[in-house]
């Protein structure tokens, strides 16, 4: 395996990175984070927090729709960089605001800002809002075995789905209902799903559906015959005939 060949393979694997980051939004978030850290280090700033009523939209991944806006130390938050009026934002988390709401063309919009990539979704006032830009992500696991024998016999497909997803079903030899649940990680709260896929192996199709059953996103995942867990905790692939 030559160095040149490894380079070629990595270039092949590097996906198109998709839409660009908004450089202005990144700078704004960076300055806000710096200012907040500076303040936290020694200044007991009295921040008059104004609670603003959130637009009437539901966004399942985000637990709180009311938030703060326009505190004295972050006065520019009353307006987004491009001049849009800021209505509300979720409470600041570790690395800055996660979500802001504003009005665009008479519609309520929510936009996720730094530290996650900007993603926007809008809906007429009063209607449910689904963040369809959230990618569908699915991976498979198990059954897993270690040197002592069976560690986990369950074969699963799991991942996270677009917000507002009513259910995720997996199409293979059979259809499996997936359990949806909310969970938080370092990127905020997300809608996860988990399905146990029995004996089916090979390519499974995972679809995320909205309340009306319309397909929001679709992806494919391979369900494996078996996997082994090495001494270092990393999965080791073995050909199917070696499965216990």
């Amino acid at each position, binding site marked *: 395996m030559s160095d040149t060949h490894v380079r070629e*393979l990595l270039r092949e694997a590097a996906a198109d*990175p998709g839409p660009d980051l908004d450089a*202005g939004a*990144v*700078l704004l978030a960076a300055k806000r984070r710096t200012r907040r850290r500076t303040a936290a280090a020694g200044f007991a700033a009295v921040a008059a927090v104004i609670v603003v009523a959130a637009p009437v939209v539901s966004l399942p991944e985000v637990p709180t729709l009311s938030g703060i806006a326009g505190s004295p130390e972050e006065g520019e938050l009353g307006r987004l960089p491009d001049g849009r009026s800021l209505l509300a934002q979720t409470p600041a988390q570790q690395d800055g605001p996660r979500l802001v709401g504003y009005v665009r063309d008479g519609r309520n919009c929510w936009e996720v800002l730094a530290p*996650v*990539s900007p993603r926007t979704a809008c809906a007429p006032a009063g209607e449910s809002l689904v963040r369809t830009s*959230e990618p569908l992500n699915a991976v498979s696991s198990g059954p897993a075995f270690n040197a002592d024998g069976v560690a986990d016999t369950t074969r699963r497909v*799991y991942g996270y789905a677009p917000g507002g997803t009513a259910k995720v079903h997996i199409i293979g030899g059979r259809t499996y209902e997936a359990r949806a649940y909310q969970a938080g990680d370092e990127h905020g709260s997300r809608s996860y799903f988990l399905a146990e896929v029995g004996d089916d192996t090979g390519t499974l199709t995972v679809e995320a559906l909205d309340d009306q059953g319309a397909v929001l996103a679709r992806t494919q995942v391979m369900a494996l015959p078996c996997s082994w867990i090495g001494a270092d905790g990393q999965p080791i692939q073995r050909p199917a005939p070696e499965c216990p």
Partner: protein
Amino acid sequence: MTSEDDFTAFVVARQRALRRSAALLTGDPALAHDLVQTALIKAWPRWRQVAASGGQEAYARRIMVTTHLSWRRRSWRKESPSEALPDIGAVASDADLAHCVRQALLSLPRRQRAAVVLRYFDDLTEQQTADALGCSVGTVKSQTSRALQKLRAHPALADVWHEEAAR
């Protein structure tokens, strides 16, 4: 040029390259997006000093890599996900090949993956890779060597290596 102008110009000019590296590190374009943005935000406080020395790219890349290494694993860490495919047939298309390479990369421990991406995708020298990872050149050599060994043995890439050997 002010620090703000320099920072903004850097983000515009270099974000795609950083995000392509980040995608290889994380295996997820959305996570890559988040990783690059988080790294850039972290880089801002020292941007003026860094820009004065002309080391913006190395600095941003180092923060990106260390941030990636520090991110705790996802909430499904106990699931031991196995995305590599032991039963992959002949490489049928560029898309399949890219998928196989990504799966093989994701099977590597994070530091080894970072070493491979920095050395062979970003074309950094061993010294530059060591700086980005915050380790010695010797460690870079050993991590890279182990990573290549694992990639060579990875079932998803078996056909690729066989084809290369046959040429």
